[in-house]
């Protein structure tokens, strides 16, 4: 169980998250919904340890990790797929994968399995990541995250800017992963459809506060739409 207790965070003097309580159970997909600027990215960066927590606590399996740095959290099993298909642009695809694999015990052994999951990357190994298309970079980004052998995979709008058929494919891969390897997934999304199809639980974020949350059943779609409309 990964949990936020009254977490406040933001950038410099600006507070963006005003006391978030959130629980991500040990299995399945949890989705955070919200409009542009609601604070989804800020929430996920705070999960990763990339933004300082002003007050409140972050715990994982009972252990307080509020003060741990990002790379320490990643070593514990967190992995991040940032918004906007970010990669190490001047490094090649191979180097992008290697630099992550080398930082994790067992990373190199996972390389083949990850490339099986994204066969398109196999042909782009020597191309600079900065020259890949958005969709290719998204795959690279997820591949990098998987190399760390995560227990909790954090994805920030993976469907953004990607054609619908590929979104479908990515969604299937994410859900498949979650059920197969027991990896839990925390997903930020704007599109209610995509988000709730894949999700087991959801939370709606609006201007830095969680305004609704629950199980992602049939009723949830309407509930979430309603919460987003406000």
């Amino acid at each position, binding site marked *: 169980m990964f949990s936020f207790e009254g977490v406040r965070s933001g950038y410099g003097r600006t507070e963006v998250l005003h006391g978030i309580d959130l629980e991500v159970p040990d299995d399945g997909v949890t989705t955070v919904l919200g409009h542009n600027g609601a604070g989804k990215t800020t929430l996920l960066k705070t999960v*990763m*340890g*990339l933004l300082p927590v002003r007050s409140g606590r972050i715990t994982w399996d009972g252990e307080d990790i509020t003060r741990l*740095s*990002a*790379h320490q959290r*990643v*070593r514990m099993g967190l992995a*991040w797929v*940032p918004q906007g*298909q*970010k*990669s*190490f*642009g*001047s*490094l090649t695809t191979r*180097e992008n994968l*290697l*630099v*992550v694999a*080398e*930082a*994790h015990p067992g990373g190199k052994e996972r390389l083949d399995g990850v490339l099986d999951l994204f066969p398109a990357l196999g042909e782009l190994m020597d191309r*600079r*990541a*900065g*020259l*890949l298309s958005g969709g290719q*970079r998204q795959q690279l980004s997820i591949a*990098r995250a998987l190399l*760390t052998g995560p227990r909790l995979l954090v994805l920030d709008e993976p469907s953004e800017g990607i054609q619908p058929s590929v979104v479908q494919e990515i969604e299937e891969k994410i859900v498949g992963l979650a059920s197969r390897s027991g990896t839990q997934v925390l997903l930020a999304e704007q599109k209610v459809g995509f988000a709730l199809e894949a999700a087991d639980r959801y939370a709606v974020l609006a201007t830095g506060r969680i305004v609704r949350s629950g199980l992602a059943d049939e009723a949830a779609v309407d509930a979430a739409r309603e919460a987003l409309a406000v």
Partner: protein
Amino acid sequence: MEILISQLFAGLSLGSVLLLAAVGLSLTFGQMGVINMAHGEFIMAGAYTAFTVQQILGSAGVSLLVSLPLAFLVGGLLGLILEATLLRRMYHRPLDTLLVTFGVSLILQQLARDIFGAPSVDVRLPELLSGPVMIFGTPVPASRVFILALTVVVVAGLSLLMSRTSLGRRIRAVVQSRELAEASGISSRRTDALTFFVGSGLAGVAGVAITLIGSTSPTLGTTYIVDAFLVVVAGGIGQIRGAVIAAAGLGLLQVFFEFGTTASIAKVIVLVIVVAFLQIRPQGIVATRTRGLA
């Protein structure tokens, strides 16, 4: 003809010394963006390491071989201490970094004066390097040929380190995006420290080389620091290839203008040329072409 060859060689030789003094900076300044004014004093520390080793071991040849790796360690450790105690706190404040490292450079100079005295000392040349060698029938100092070769080895080694090794990949990843590197499980602090260790260590190696062509004094570093920054900036920040071209160019220009004028006038002319060049091409000789974070 003979004059041309000897001038050409003198220029390249000067360029190789400049390059050696600057390669470390191409890491700490070029990659990490830290303006370390004490880099010159790390060179000086390398030179005094060579001097001390020779005092202890006696044999000039053996001392030189021992000094090179040892000076790398000395420079590297000085860099590591500076990074861990001061620079780490001011990565986003270049002006503070400049002032603090300037202070550190003065302290290191005073320290050298206290330990080794103010007058300059000399390191004896190994037998093999003390005479001239013939290049196209023109005699040139063997010590300078050695420095040229050392520079080639050091620069090639650094390029390989950056392009082929896991440390090189890690350094480039952190330079590109500290955030993404951290969130990929790479400790950016440890990487910064290692980068600084290697960059400062290379200053130490440059110091040993410089003992082969001149005396060693506590102010040795001040002679080289400005030129070293000039090489990195003119070459294109973060570009080893650019630094190589810039160093060769600077060396040749300096020697060319010295011919018929004096060393100081030549220096002024070269500086004016570099400033004018940077007006036309602020990104330096070799510009970074890829989109950084894509």
